């Protein structure tokens, strides 16, 4: 796009800036939309679960304009800062929270190659940045200068810090399987039919997926792990003192992070943008079929990916309105006594599995994206070739 | 020279590293809070890390010259890991210090004064 602008004789620094801004806008839009849709979903699903109708009037039949309306209302609200608060931190916190979530979108691929920044350490980066989000929460909780908030923040800290470990391990499992941390490659390696998805790669990954789900829910502190904002115990946890626009930021941050973790799950385990049936490749809508076709194929893939992500969000919402809240000690127990050991065992299992029958559960010869453990180097060589789909041949060599 | 157009080199990174390092030193020297001192240490380590990475990086070198290559990142990685370990121990020490002195003011811990 930058090139496009330059071609119409715009000074290139301007061009680059504009291009960057536009892309940021796109991402922001996606983030916000996901948040909005998430809120709407929440309301509707909860209503259905509680045998209500939920929002119906605003914006037609399904109240699909309810989220913007809420946003409007909240923006109009008065912004209150407690006297005992640490003003600066109190102000910063929501932005920190949202920015962290937003940064995650930078490395989140929506389709083959459709990613803001394709990082080799993408998965790792994702985890790292998602971790930053908690920072905002803690700051907010602390800066509010209220006991409830502090409690909430502390709980959040304990919970998230401990859930980082199994979450990271889950990702490591997939990384071991694919031999790369590049999310695009991970997605591509699952191309083809649904049994190429890593969740079906072998029994271990299947278990790991469910552990991932647990940890994801916990790390985006949703019920039943929503200790930080346990309205029945601490008034509203770290949100107690927040109102209006700042609160909105927290809120959107939460929903965006839901989207992110669901998307990550989809990427890692559910084949990313590859549908259960490889329609795109069956129809020949692949990059080597020509740019346009590739573009269309990617569009399909993107829809596919977003659908999966929202499915995951729906699952989380369903969970929230179904399960009671855990006690903090139960939360920690779940993490340290169950998730961590299980996922460690699964890690070992996956290693052995992919060492002894590298083909995956269905031992048929996959397309050229087969990951071939145990020689990490070679598999990396393979995947790096696949990553660029032949363009810009990379000189990798394997040790032998 | 116009920094916006000239490519940055090793020196720039080194300067940033130096700033971090010095800030860390000053932080250690001035903070009375144990945790403040710890943060100072973190800063110092980061300054050093930055230097390692810069030296290891291939973009900052004029081509042809051969830097320390992967070793830089490797050492930086180790530094990070050790920093984490150090943080753990230091915090534990801080905790027991707090238990012993009911404060985290390092100026209170003068049992070893000559």
């Amino acid at each position: 796009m930058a090139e496009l602008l330059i071609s119409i004789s715009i000074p290139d620094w301007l061009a680059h800036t504009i291009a960057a801004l536009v892309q940021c806008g796109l991402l922001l839009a996606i983030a916000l939309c996901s948040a909005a849709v998430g809120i709407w979903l929440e309301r509707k699903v909860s209503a259905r679960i509680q045998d209500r109708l939920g929002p119906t009037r605003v914006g037609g039949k399904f109240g699909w304009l309810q989220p913007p309306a809420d946003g409007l209302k909240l923006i109009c609200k008065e912004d209150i800062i407690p006297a005992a608060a640490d003003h600066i931190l109190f102000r910063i916190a929501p932005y920190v929270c949202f920015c962290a979530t937003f940064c995650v979108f930078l490395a989140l691929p929506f389709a083959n190659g459709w990613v803001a920044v394709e990082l080799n350490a993408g998965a790792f980066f994702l985890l790292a940045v998602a971790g930053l989000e908690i920072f905002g929460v803690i700051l907010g909780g602390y800066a509010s200068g209220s006991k409830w908030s502090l409690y909430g923040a502390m709980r959040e800290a304990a919970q998230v810090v401990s859930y980082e470990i199994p979450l990271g391990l889950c990702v490591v499992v997939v990384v071991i399987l694919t031999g790369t941390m590049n999310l695009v490659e991970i997605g591509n390696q699952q191309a083809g039919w649904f049994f190429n998805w890593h969740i079906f790669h072998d029994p271990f990954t299947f278990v790991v997926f469910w552990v991932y789900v647990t940890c994801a829910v916990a790390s985006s502190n949703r019920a039943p792990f929503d200790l930080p904002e346990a309205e029945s115990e601490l008034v509203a946890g770290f949100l107690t003192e927040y109102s209006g626009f700042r609160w909105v930021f927290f809120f959107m941050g939460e929903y965006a992070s839901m989207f992110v973790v669901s998307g990550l799950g989809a990427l890692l385990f559910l084949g990313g943008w590859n549908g259960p049936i490889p329609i795109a490749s069956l129809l020949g809508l692949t990059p080597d079929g020509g740019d346009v076709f590739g573009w269309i194929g990617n569009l399909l893939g993107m829809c596919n990916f977003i659908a999966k992500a929202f499915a995951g969000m729906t699952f989380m919402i369903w969970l929230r309105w179904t399960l009671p809240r855990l006690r903090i000690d139960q939360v920690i127990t779940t993490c340290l006594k169950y998730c961590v050991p299980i996922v460690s065992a699964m890690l070992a299992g996956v290693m052995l599995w992919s060492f002894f029958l590298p083909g995956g559960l269905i031992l048929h010869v996959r397309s050229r994206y087969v990951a071939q453990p145990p020689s990490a180097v070679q598999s990396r060589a393979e995947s790096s070739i696949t990553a660029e789909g032949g363009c810009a041949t990379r000189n990798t060599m394997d040790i032998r | 020279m116009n920094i916006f157009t000239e490519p940055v080199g090793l020196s720039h990174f080194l300067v940033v590293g130096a700033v971090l390092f010095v800030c860390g030193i000053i932080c250690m020297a001035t903070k009375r809070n144990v945790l403040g001192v710890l943060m100072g240490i973190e800063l110092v380590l980061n300054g050093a890390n930055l230097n390692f990475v810069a030296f290891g990086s291939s973009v900052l070198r004029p081509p042809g010259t051969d830097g320390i290559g992967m070793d830089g990142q490797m050492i930086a990685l180790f530094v990070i890991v050790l920093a984490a370990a150090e943080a753990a121990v230091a915090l534990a020490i801080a905790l027991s210090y707090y238990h012993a002195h009911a404060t985290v003011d390092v100026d209170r811990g003068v049992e070893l004064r000559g």
Partner: protein
Amino acid sequence: MDAINWHSCFFLLFAAIACGFAVAVVVVGDIVRMACCLVVSLAAVAGLFFLAEAEFLGAAQLMVYVGGTMVLLIFGVMLTARGPFVSMKTGGGQWVLAIVIGVALFAVLLQAATSTSAWNGPKANDQAAVPAANNSPLPQAGEGPGVRAVEGDSQDAAGQLGLGLLGVREDRLRRQDKPVLLGGMSGYLLVFEIISVHLVVVLVGAAYLARARRRGRNPESRSPLPDPRSPKPESP
């Protein structure tokens, strides 16, 4: 030619953030704010790592240090919980001393950093070698082979790091023309092992140091009563 060098720009941005917040860490009195500033500074350093094409390292930096400083922060909150914002003032003289020393040190370091001319940056004609750090890390086609080699170095740094930890120096492999010498390349397997063991030991030690002690009758007591779970019970 004066095309904007985005790499340099982002470098300036991150450098400014890093240095500024580092100074802020020194200046700010409140421990929690210090922590925030530290986090920002470190995040900026991570950004610098990205610029230096050490992505994995950057991510690691974010993860470890953010986690670490978060814990720091929590400790700060817990331990200085005498009233929300306790700050311990330092005497002016000390400040002066520290700053004098700091400045002297900085001067020396500056001199050292800028002393070597080769460090002042690649030659202008190699600019293409420096990939623009904004959203297109993939190399444009039509670059020199050396550049691609550089790319190859940087692109899968994570993999090379991993291999290096396992004792294989792939970057050296690439540079190594004589296959005879491939055997003798030093990896970091041993260091890796040592460090992992060291980590375990450290964590155990930390857990031991920080184990819950019952506070003595008088909180000022220099030596707290020993751990009640210790084998020989103290007189109550």
